[in-house]
Each structure stands twice: as C-alpha cells, then as structure tokens.
C-alpha cells in the first residue's frame, strides 16, 4: 500500500502538550535540538489547564521553616513509601527553581505582603507550600509554557494529532506514526528520541474529572514498544468532585476550598473527618475545630484540620459516610465554606472573601449547579482524578526501559508512590518535564537517525483505518467505551475485592473482543467515531494494567483499598508491581523490590516524623 502521509523529521519528538510536554520541548530546544510536539487537542487545552489549587515548591515565602527536606518527607509519607525516593528527592530540591523560572517567563502568581510568591495550605503538606493564582493555577502554568515555547524557532507543533504507534529500529525508538484529526491524513515523524507526556487514564472510569483525551495512550504506546508500567494499581480518586446535576458529575472541586477553611459535613450535620485520623498523621492534625481554623488562617503553632489529610483517606471517609446512609440527597456529602462567616465578620465579608479566593469554583457552581457557594453548601463525592502509576523510568533521566523512550508527568510513574499530594502534579511536570527534555536531547545528540521500517509503518496504518475501510462488525465504539467505564467504576473503584476484580478482568477480555468489531462511519475528516475506535485499545491496555496490579497487591495502601485485605502489610510494602508485554503478547506482572532509601533520606524522614 502506498501510504499517503505527511512527514516530519526531528531530534526529539514530544507526545503531549500539557505542562510536562511543553516543559520538555522548551528544554530540548534550549539544548540545541529540533523538537516536534504532537498534541491530541489544540495547544493550551491539555488537562494541566484544569489544575486549580497550586504548584508545590518549598520556597518558604509564607513559612520559612519549609525546605526541600520537609517537602521530600511529606511526599514520601503521602505516597506511603512506595515512591521512587530519588524522584521524590529531585522533585523537592528542584521545584522551587522551576517555579521561579516560570515567573521570569511571564507567570503572575498571587503575592505575599512583601511582594513574593504567595503560598497556600494543601492536604499532606506540612507548611503552606502551594504557589497559586486564585484557583486557576493550571491555566497560568500552561499559558506561560505555551507562550514561552511558541517563540522557540526550533519547536514545531502538530495540533489535533494523535499518535497510534511508536516505531522501533532494533531496541530503540526512532519515530512514530499518527493521524491528523482535521485532514484524517497520517503523519510520520522520524525522531532520535521520544518523550511521552500524554497524561493519565481517567476515561477508563465512569466518574472522572478527566476530559476525552485521557485514554491511557502513553501507557499503551510504551507498553506496545516493550516498556514497563509501574504502580498501575494506584489510581487517585479525588475526594471532591461535583455530584449534581448528573451532567457535571465528576467535575473537580479544588482542594483549595478546604485549604481556605471549607469543612466536610454529613447529612446529620456532623463534621465526620474528626472521627477517623490515621495514626501516622495524628500528631500533625488539629485537635478540634478551633485549631483547624487557626491553621488555615496562618497560625504557625496550629495543626491542619482533618479535611486536609491525604486524598486517599478523605475519599474513603466520604465513601463510608455515603454507604452508611449519611450522605447528601444526590449521593455525596456536604462541603461547606459558608460557615467562615462566623469567623470573618459576617456573611457579606465571607462572600467577598470566597469570591476572591475561589473565583472559578464560585462560577462553576453558579453556572453549572445553580448554587451560590457563598450562601449554600456544595454536594461533593469522589471522582477519578489521577494515575500515580505509569511508565517505569529512571529517576534521574526519565528514560524508560526502552532506549530513547522517555516519559514525564502523569504518564510516568514513581514519584507519587501510592498516593499523590495535591500540588505535587504541577511541580512534577515542571521538574521532570525539564529533565525528560534534557536527557532526551542528550540521547538524541549521541545517536544517528534510526531506520524506519516501511513494513511496520504500513501495518500500523492499515490497522488504524480498518474500522472504516474493512470493519468486521457493527458495534458502536461509544457504547463499548461506556460499558468499559461502568465496569471499571463498579469493580475496580475506591473499594476493591479480588472476586470483583477477577470479574472485571473477564469483562476486559469481552470488551477486547467487542473492540475488534467496532466500526466507524466513513470519512476521515474530523471523525470522532473513528477516533473513539482508535482510543479503545489504549483504554483496554490501561484498564487491564490497573486491574492485574490491583489484584496482585494484597493489602490496603494509599489509593488502593482492598475490602478483603483492609490493612497495610509489611511484606507487600517491599514491592512495586510492574507490568509489561510478555513474549506471547499477553500482559505479565512482576514484583520489583521498592528502591531503597539512602541513609540520608532515612534520617530526613525520621527527623520530619517528630
């Protein structure tokens, strides 16, 4: 078959144009490489734009007791020590420089009284650490990176283009094949190194804060190319998503609401978070309502309110209240910020403060929920938000187990362990986006161009269009996707059981068979039916990786809660779960020893636990 396609040639191909992808592209370009960025949507629309609360960096602008060691220890504790400790160390050390650099590129963060970058409290962070812009920090960061990268003459961007296959020359990657949504034409990109920055897999679940793009493409591309995926059982359910009306179910309500004093209440008016405080956080948690309020208003002697415990814990507490019949009318619990009127001098002052600190939340509820958060309580419940696991990378270079293939941001695994702290995703994508770009550039400079195998390319192209040109059935791709989402939500959700997860695995096999029989309407120009057909294999690989890893981990830790193994296990704590494609093409799982901490790291963690 003579393939009609567009061709590009570059040193470094970056797949994904969220924060991690753009930061990688900027770095590789600054090191003298030609860079090609491919993005599934338009530039500036990636999920980074949805990040609300802030970016974690121990600048110490608000509390000078903060520093990289505290941030490191917080990240490890939050991740229940499943983290790659080297990544947690680099992340804590380098994020302040990455944030300040953004300011020089035009980002305008909120300020302290002495004109520095303001920082706010967030769950699991010991001190006010999140640099922010109201509750639209992600928008500020992606726009800054976007506007900075467009002036790099060696960065080319293909918008609305999806990669369907990584191409290999022997062991190493040497390019990729994709298609352009607008024309439907194939795009062949030759590259000496590839950075995957495609985000997560939220669309494998029914209730999610993720947009249509997050179908686990990066995991599937890397997996097919022979790379390993690590910690895939750890899927973060953010405790506060909207629950009503149905059309907005899952949309994120920032943790910033709780950081500004918002409290969680059940239908009986009880502030239930005080009832269940984990042992390892007890000496860092407020004794009562009074102390909690003092903490959120900046009293350095006070401890955090229990609403600001880690996300895994808060999500489970909400889930328990709802299951016990103490939920709100639409199956959530109440998140109340109106109560601060008692403390700030009346309802008018409170309303003004809420609108100033949480403008996007105010508008989101007013316009989508018909509710004024300055006078009424919100209804919230858990929503699939983030994938802690991902492509297994080297902590320093971000290179996967496949030479020349790098990953950064949510697409990579290791930094967050079993649970990610809020604010650590934006800092993750800055720190490791830069590192991935840097080491991909180094790798590219040391390589000759790879050899593109025409047979690989044509096979991938034929595979990509057969849904349209030669369908083998008439399944509706949207229906298969929706059925998969329902199954994963019901069987591999917040509370997990081996029997149910085995059922989910059987279902995944059924969905795989159905996904072979989907058909797309004809016409390759901007055809979302076809795009949905192409997303299904990625979703299925991602869902399978989550499920088999979750079955293998026989304990409850971080985001993984097993009703059949409700406690932490010392034995399980020694292992990370790693999946890859076996020689027969089936997914295989291996236990890999958790990376050891150095003596210095152990000392830091011990000191910070006091």
């Amino acid at each position, binding site marked *: 078959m003579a393939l009609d396609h567009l061709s590009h040639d570059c040193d470094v191909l970056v797949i994904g144009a969220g924060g991690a992808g753009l930061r990688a592209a900027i770095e590789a370009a600054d090191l003298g490489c030609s860079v090609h960025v491919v993005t599934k*949507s*338009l*530039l*500036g*629309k990636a*999920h980074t*734009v*949805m990040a609300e609360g802030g970016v974690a960096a121990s600048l110490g602008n608000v509390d000078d007791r903060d520093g990289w060691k505290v941030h490191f220890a917080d990240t490890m504790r939050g991740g229940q020590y499943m983290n790659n400790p080297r990544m947690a160390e680099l992340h804590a050390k380098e994020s302040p*420089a990455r944030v*300040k650099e953004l*300011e*020089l590129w*035009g980002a*305008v963060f*909120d*300020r302290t009284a002495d*004109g*520095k*970058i*303001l920082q706010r409290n967030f769950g699991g962070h010991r001190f006010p650490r999140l640099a922010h*812009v109201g509750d*639209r920090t992600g*928008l*500020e960061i992606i*726009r800054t990176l976007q*506007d*900075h990268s*467009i*002036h790099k003459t060696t960065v080319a961007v293909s918008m609305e283009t999806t990669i369907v296959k990584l191409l290999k020359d022997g062991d190493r990657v040497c390019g990729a094949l994709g298609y352009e949504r*607008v024309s439907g034409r194939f795009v062949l990109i030759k590259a000496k190194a590839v950075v995957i920055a495609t985000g997560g897999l939220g669309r494998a679940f029914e209730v999610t804060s993720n*947009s249509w*793009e997050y179908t686990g493409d990066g995991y599937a591309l890397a997996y097919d190319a022979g790379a390993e995926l690590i910690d895939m059982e750890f899927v973060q359910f953010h405790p506060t998503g909207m629950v*009503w*009306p149905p*059309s*907005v179910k899952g*949309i*994120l309500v920032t943790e910033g609401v709780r950081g500004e004093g918002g409290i969680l209440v059940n239908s009986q008016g009880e502030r239930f978070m005080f009832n269940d405080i984990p042992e390892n956080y007890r000496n860092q948690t407020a004794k009562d309502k009074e102390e909690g309020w003092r903490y959120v208003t900046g009293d350095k002697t006070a401890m955090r309110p229990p609403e600001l415990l880690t996300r895994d814990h808060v999500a489970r507490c909400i889930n328990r209240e709802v299951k016990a019949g103490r939920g709100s009318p639409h199956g959530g619990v109440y998140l109340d910020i109106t109560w601060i009127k008692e403390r700030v001098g009346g309802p008018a002052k409170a309303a003004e403060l809420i609108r100033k600190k949480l403008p*996007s939340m105010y*508008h*989101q*509820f007013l*316009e*989508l*929920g*018909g*509710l004024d958060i300055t006078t009424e309580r919100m209804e919230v419940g858990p929503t699939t938000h983030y994938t802690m696991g991902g492509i297994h990378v080297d902590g320093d270079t971000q290179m996967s187990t496949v030479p020349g293939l790098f990953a950064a941001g949510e697409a990579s695994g290791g930094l967050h362990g079993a649970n990610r702290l809020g604010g650590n995703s934006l800092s993750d994508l800055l720190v490791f986006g830069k590192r991935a770009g840097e080491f991909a550039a180094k790798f590219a400079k040391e390589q000759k161009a790879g050899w593109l195998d025409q047979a690989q390319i044509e096979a991938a192209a034929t595979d990509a269009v057969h849904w349209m040109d030669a369908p083998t059935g008439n399944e*509706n791709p*949207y*229906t298969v996707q*929706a059925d998969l989402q329902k199954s994963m939500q019901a069987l591999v959700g917040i509370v997990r059981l081996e029997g149910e997860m085995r059922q989910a695995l059987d279902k995944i096999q059924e969905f795989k068979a159905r996904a072979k029989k989907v058909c*797309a*309407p004809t016409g390759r*120009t*901007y*055809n*979302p*039916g*076809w795009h*949905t057909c192409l997303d299904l294999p990625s979703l299925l690989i991602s869902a399978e990786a989550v499920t088999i890893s979750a079955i293998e981990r026989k304990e409850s830790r971080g985001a993984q809660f097993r009703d059949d193994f409700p406690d932490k296990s010392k034995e399980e704590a020694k292992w990370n779960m790693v999946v890859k494609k076996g020689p027969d093409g089936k997914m295989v799982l291996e236990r890999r020893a958790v990376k050891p901490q150095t003596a210095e790291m152990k000392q830091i963690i011990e000191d910070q636990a006091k």
Partner: protein
Amino acid sequence: MSSPSPVPTTTRSEPRTFIIWRGDKDSGTYTPYTAEITAGMVVLDAIHQIQAVHAPDLAVRWNCKAGKCGSCAAEINGKPRLMCMTRMESLPPGPIHVAPMKAFPNIKDLVTDVKWNYAVNKRIKPFKPKQVEADGSLRMQQHDIDRVQEFRKCIECFLCQDTCHVLREHDKHAEFAGPRFFVRMASLEMHPQDAEDRREFLKKEAAIGYCNITKCCTEVCPEHIHITDNAIIPLKERVVDQYYDPLAAAIRFVFGSKK
C-alpha cells in the same frame, strides 16, 4: 452578578430538537436531531448524546466540560457561547440552533479552523523581565498585578474574536489582531515588571485603531473579562500618547524616548 438559576430536582427526561450544522466550508445543511434532556444538562451534553446515538461522526471540539479550557465555542441560537456552560434551562422553549463560529473557516460541523489565532500570538513580543532579584524571582505587589491577573483569566475560546465585527463582518484577519490578543498584549504591557514596548506593533500590525469599542467582545466573554474597558481602551490611550500627543512628542524630542 447573575443569580443562580435553580436546577430542577426531577429526573424525568423530555425530548428537545436540536438543529445542527452538518457540513464544511463548501457545503452543508442544518440537520434536526432529537435529544432526551434531563435536569441540569448543558448543550454539550445534548451534542454528545446525539453523537453517541444518532451521528457518531458529528465533529465537535471539547475538553474540560467545565468552562476552563475554551474548546467548545459555538453559536447557540445565534449567540457565541461555550456549549459546556450553556444550561438547557437557560434557553427558551423551541428548537435549539447550534452552528460553528462564523469568523473562522469551517472544517466540519461544529469545528472551525482557529489556527490563525495561534499565528497572531506568535508575533507578539514575549515578556521581558525588568529587575530579577538575586534569588531568581520578581518582587511585585498584589495591587500592582490585580489588573494583569484579570487578563490572564482568558481561556482562549476565541468567542471574542468570533463576535468582533472587524473579523466577523470585514474579514480583516490579515491586518487586525482581535480582542483576544489585545487582552494578551494588555497582560504584558501592564505587567509591572515588563520591560518590552509593544506600542508600535499595536498600532501598525495589530491595528488597534480598527476597534470602535462596541463592547461586543466583552459581552460574550465567558470569563467576564472587561475586554474593552480594561484592556483595549487603555492600550488605545498608550498608542495615542506615543503617536498623536504633540506635547509628548516635543518632550521626547528634547529628553529622548522612554517607556
């Protein structure tokens, strides 16, 4: 400030007719579809339902579904709006017309070719910091950045570009930057730590003079940015001061040019 329109508590659904543009820049037709509407639904939900049930190839752009990314701009009953932020309860009874943005070439159905905007942005001189502190950061007071932060709320939905008559009616894309990029330039020009000067670009290449401040852009902005009053008019004043003020010209002649 708008007061919230309450979401009905019923879970009953009722059918509504949507008349949607199906076609491209050369040909097409408005095609009727039916969607089952339940409480709290937005127009984008209905479009998705139609796509999943009746028209799998119906082209539509969307991402966040929460008014934060600006992808799903379209014209609903003739008005430029975000489909994800248009509640069904807010629309009058009768069929709902959904069309692509008119100021940009139609690619297919509700998707338009907006890449012109990205090309304009590339021509704007980037931020250039004035005084960097020893620790690598800037010092700025909150009250000095409040107005810049308003401009930086822009989600690049391009509804302001769509409604601007200079682009929509007069097709001046080749010589006019449009409200979105006046907002962007305002965010740079009014940044207390920016050392660049974009006045010549504003006058000669962005043609800010074409704007006759009808405020249509401000009206459609989903982020409620005061585009005309806070961005365009102050920028026009800067250009006027630079090019048309004889006293200022004389002072510059004697003392030299300074931003």
